[in-house]
């Protein structure tokens, strides 16, 4: 039968904002309807940290969920420890799944020691969301494909406006009344935001993408990209200050119509679709030398200790295959990993913003993945602190780069990779 073999429901551990969780519930309802008798129980965590805590304790306690959804940047620590069930055999035996249907870059990101451990549900990349209404209001040309970093800085500068509509420089206004009411650009100072520009400038993030041992931001290209990122705040003042970010994060600032451009992934779309006050769209990332994107992808993984593997697999098949992908894509949350679905109206729905959704698809051929070393989450956390201080406090660039190197090196050393 199609009912779950061990009786209990398939437990799927995910995290997300309430709207995202609603999307998963939609998927599950559809599945249970399509496969009568099957039951899937959504185990909800509110954020990644909660999910990790749950996952780890339950694995340690010997009762892990049957499936969990996880970003490739964070799955390394589980992959390395052999707690994720390789899926190759099941894929091979599957009627519904064909490797070839999926973007290889996403599939590869979840390959560990040659084994396919998880199956990606989405393949996203960074894009620049922009407020068309604002651009129109101030008569600034909208960003377009192929624009450069300098174009972006210039656009951002032009879009940083005071209450009276005049262009102002955010740096002069520290602590003063003349805070910009509209900031030109929102971008968070993290490795994952920095990476595509480093690559685009011809640099590298780590010494060896397969077996990284250190961050290599000391290379000239990487250094330039980093400096330019920091200068957005320190020299041009086009991004909000840390105080302003704490007061109102970039995503809400954008949603509230006071941020002209925001660099983020597909994830924000669900939220922005609720915006009614203005029109918005997406543009590709600016480039230095060649266009490069950075991969954002989440996948379903099955713990080796799962009790309900067969049933879990059946749900996984459904979720990853065309129908499942359509359902999730319709919520706006994902750029489907299934090539066909991605190019269908389920994703490129012309009735829904962003009109330029194709930007995400166009970027896919150029995206690169970050390393999946098992200690990567720790490296991101450490470097985020350092980068934040660089961007907002204006730490000396040399110190920043040295600090990044020395503080992450031991973490790399502890890491394991596939």
């Amino acid at each position, binding site marked *: 039968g199609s009912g779950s073999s061990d009786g209990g429901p398939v*437990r799927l551990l995910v995290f997300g904002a*309430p709207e995202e969780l609603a999307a998963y519930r939609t998927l599950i309802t559809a599945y249970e309807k399509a496969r009568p008798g099957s039951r899937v129980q*959504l185990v909800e965590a*509110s954020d990644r940290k909660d999910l990790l805590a749950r996952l780890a304790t*339950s694995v340690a*306690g010997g009762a892990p969920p049957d499936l969990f959804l996880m970003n490739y940047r964070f799955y390394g620590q589980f992959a390395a420890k052999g707690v994720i069930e390789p899926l190759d055999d099941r894929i091979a035996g599957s009627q519904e799944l064909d490797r070839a249907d999926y973007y290889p870059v996403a599939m590869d990101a979840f390959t560990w020691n040659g084994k396919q451990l998880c199956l990606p549900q989405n393949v996203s990349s960074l894009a620049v969301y922009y407020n068309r209404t604002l651009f129109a209001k101030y008569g600034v040309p909208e960003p377009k494909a192929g624009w450069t970093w300098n174009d972006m800085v210039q656009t951002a500068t032009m879009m940083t406006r005071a209450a009276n509509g005049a262009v102002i420089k955010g740096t002069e206004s520290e602590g003063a009344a003349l805070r910009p009411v509209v900031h030109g650009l929102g971008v968070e100072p993290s490795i994952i935001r920095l990476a595509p520009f480093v690559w685009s400038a011809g640099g590298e993030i780590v010494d060896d993408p397969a077996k990284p041992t250190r961050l290599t931001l000391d290379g000239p290209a990487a250094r330039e990209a980093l400096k330019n990122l920091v200068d957005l705040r320190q020299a041009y003042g086009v991004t909000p200050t840390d105080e302003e970010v704490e*007061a*109102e994060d970039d995503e809400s600032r954008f949603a*509230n119509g006071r941020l002209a451009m925001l660099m983020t992934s597909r994830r924000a779309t669900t939220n922005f679709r*609720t915006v009614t006050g203005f029109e918005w769209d997406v543009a590709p990332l600016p480039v230095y030398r060649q266009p490069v994107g950075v991969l954002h992808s989440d996948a379903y993984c099955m713990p080796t200790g799962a009790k309900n593997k067969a049933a879990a697999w059946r749900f996984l098949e459904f979720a990853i295959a065309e129908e499942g992908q359509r359902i999730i894509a319709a919520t706006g949350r994902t750029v489907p990993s299934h090539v066909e679905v991605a190019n269908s109206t389920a994703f490129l729905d012309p009735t829904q913003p962003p009109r330029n959704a194709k930007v995400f698809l166009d970027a896919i051929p150029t995206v690169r993945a970050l390393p999946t070393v098992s200690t990567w989450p720790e490296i991101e956390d450490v470097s985020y602190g350092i980068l934040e201080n660089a961007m907002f406090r204006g730490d000396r660039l040399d110190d920043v780069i040295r600090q990044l190197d020395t503080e992450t090196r031991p973490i790399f050393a502890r890491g394991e990779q596939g």
Partner: protein
Amino acid sequence: MRGRGRGPAPLPEGALRVWHTLGAAFVLLVFVPPLVLLVSGSLTQPGLPPAPTPQLVPDPLATVGYEQAVALGGLLRASLNSVLVAVVAVPLSVLVASLAGFAMARLAPRTTGTVVAASLVALMVPATALLVPRFAIFRVLGLTDTLVPLVAPALVGTSPLYVLVYYLAFRALPAELYDACLVEDLSPVRTWWRMALPMVRPVTAGLTALTFVLTWSNFLDPLVYVYDRDLFTLPLALRSLSVLDPTNFPVFLAGAVVATVPALVVFVLAQRRFLHTPDRNGR
């Protein structure tokens, strides 16, 4: 037994009252605003850009926050679960704590000393250190994904501190009262029930309220032990609201209000016990 009469007035009544009232007013001024802000914040229209000036009465006044909080967070179901846990865990916890505190006050000093030391040690153990081993225990007992692990802390009186507080309270009762009970051939349990427990009613009221709050706001345990959304308790539901973006603060403040109100009610009820039962001196 000593002590008589109503509270005396070491200061002339008038001056004393003024001082106490002034003090009380000051306390109100300091402690109430955060909560008023909580309520007023929760009544703000979500999704609007934040107001640049402080607003005590939000404009426009909106209950959308509550609607969204209830819908998004599944607050109703979660409230029900929280109530369920509290209804079982709080009385159980107070029972365990008062029984243990009483036993400690009456047992030989050596036994008591050991238990006190063990309780202090237990107080020192951070909650995070217990999650994983406890998970294993609960799994062996087949109790994960039930509400039982959320009730389990009642076995330690929710916090060993409460056991110790009971212990001190029982120990402070005049020895003659215990003697009188001995002469009346009361077994320890009955001495506890008929004499000691009624004598420390304010302590019980206070600890019940505190136990309720701790149980009610327990966040780590359900996070780790409860899988089923239908078993979520309020803090978990709130936690999922906390990932909303900041412009939606009315939604999570509304959730916070919903989660806070029952605790407040319990506190006010307990407080009434404090106020209206005369204390040991008939005040």
